[in-house]
């Protein structure tokens, strides 16, 4: 069949499909509810066949480009990702995320060791040699820490600012750190190792110094509430970065490309879970941890409960039963 005849036969249905797709881009819901939406998959496949014919018969670009354009537009509509559902988010947080963390338990264990060992080491060293604080932190930093956790403060854990301001600050700061520790893991895991180790030294150092100078009371009362969510999220984000770097180093029985894509999907889900944990941590830190008036029993009791909750969630979540996910 000659090209002109082919175009004359079909150009009206091409125009119709094109018009429908254009309308879809402008008014999505209304266009999808029309009856003509039901015909779309069939018409699209017809168009694909016509494009294949046009290419096979060597028709001019004028025709093939025109068809190709409609096909691309239709492909985007037919194969668009499913709309997100809140139910799936809940299932992921309750079951999928803990399962994923457990499936990567080697990286998580390594990340926990990389963070907690330097932290504990610094904590102990500071008791033994308090002068060490001067070499790790500058004197302005030390003065800042001491001001934040001065037992005379009415609000602990901060020198100024309201709950809302600190909530914004914690979200921006902590989540950015977690995301960066995941992403920098792509450098063969070095970035994640550095972020975990540096934060371990920093946090252990502050804790050790404040305990050594006798400000331990306010400090531990402040951090115990949100520590479970915050440190857990940091370790998980770092572990996600380690996992990404290790996949690059040793992809196993796969080519590096597909192995990296799979690791990236796992890592992104872990990072999103860590993000949710950090939101909870920031909320607790801004609105609960800063209340100084509560008795020790409540503070440490709630903190311990949080640790039990977080560890129990990560350990048992999504186990048993095949519901939902």
């Amino acid at each position: 069949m000659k090209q002109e005849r082919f175009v004359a036969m079909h150009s009206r249905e091409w125009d119709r499909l094109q018009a429908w797709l254009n309308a879809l881009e402008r008014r999505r819901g209304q266009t999808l509810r029309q009856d003509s939406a039901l015909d779309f998959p069939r018409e699209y496949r017809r168009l694909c066949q016509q494009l294949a014919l046009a290419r096979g018969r060597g028709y001019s670009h004028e025709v093939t480009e025109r068809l190709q354009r409609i096909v691309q537009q239709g492909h985007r509509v037919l194969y668009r990702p499913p709309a997100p559902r809140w139910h799936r988010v809940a299932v992921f947080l309750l079951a999928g995320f803990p399962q994923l963390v457990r499936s990567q338990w080697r990286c998580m264990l390594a990340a926990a060791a990389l963070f907690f060992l330097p932290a504990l080491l610094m904590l102990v060293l500071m008791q033994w040699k308090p002068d060490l604080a001067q070499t790790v932190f500058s004197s302005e930093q030390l003065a800042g820490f001491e001001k934040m956790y001065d037992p005379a403060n009415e609000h602990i854990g901060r020198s100024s600012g309201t709950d809302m301001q600190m909530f914004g600050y914690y979200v921006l700061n902590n989540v950015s750190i977690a995301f960066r520790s995941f992403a920098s893991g792509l450098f063969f895991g070095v970035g994640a190792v550095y972020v975990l180790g540096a934060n371990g030294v920093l946090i252990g150092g502050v804790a050790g110094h404040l305990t050594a100078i006798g400000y331990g009371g306010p400090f531990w009362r402040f951090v115990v509430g949100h520590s479970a969510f915050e440190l857990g999220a940091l370790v998980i984000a770092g572990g996600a970065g380690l996992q990404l770097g290790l996949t690059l180093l040793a992809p196993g029985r796969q080519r590096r490309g597909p192995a990296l894509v799979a690791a990236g999907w796992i890592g992104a889900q872990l990072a999103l879970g860590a993000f949710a944990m950090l939101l909870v941590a920031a909320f607790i830190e801004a609105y609960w941890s800063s209340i100084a008036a509560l008795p020790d029993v409540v503070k440490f009791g709630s903190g311990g409960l949080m640790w039990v909750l977080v560890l129990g969630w990560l350990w048992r979540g999504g186990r048993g039963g095949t519901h939902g996910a």
Partner: protein
Amino acid sequence: MIDTIREIETPEGIALRLRAAGALPRAQAWMIDLILRVVLLCVAMVPLSLLGVAGNGLAMLFMFALMWAYPVVCEVCMAGQTLGKRALGLRVVNADGSPVAWLPSVVRNLLRVVDILPGVYAVGLVCTLVDPHARRLGDIVAGTMVIHAGELPAGQQVPEVPALPLPLVLPVDEQAALVEFAERAGQLSVHRQEELANLLEPLTGCRDGAAVRRLVAHVNWLLGRS
């Protein structure tokens, strides 16, 4: 042929031809996005500053959203285009040409942290230059690519002249080559047109301008014009 076109076979059995976008338009799109976000933040600061220190916290939350959530939400909800990409006619798609989904978009935007190192996208630039489909590291790990969404420049009409039947039957690919010559003749200099047409002297039986006109007439016959 050296080309930036990536062909992807769809379930319908045809090849989608995606044109990969290089570093320059993508950098421009990123600049537009950056300026837009800075302006948005500045505008939002005005009412927020009236709220005092609490407004400070809200401003930081807003900054967080602009930093991390803006590209992901835009890409997923606006068919693979942030506002800057829309201005430049770019689009993010999955490796199979379908619109980018949530997780791949999250991966490619989180790994921007790596591509942006050191300083001004050096890793990303090198990566787009090396990769055949101009993907940065984040795109490779996410399994996505950035393509030109706009249409090809027009002006490929075959000039209409009275049709002239071909003296012999040509195979399909040779017919296609003739059609392509007629389509692209307008972009070539007259001498180049004649030089190409002279190669077919055994077919046309004439040279130079007459040969070009004869070939275009043959193509009109091939396309089925009268």
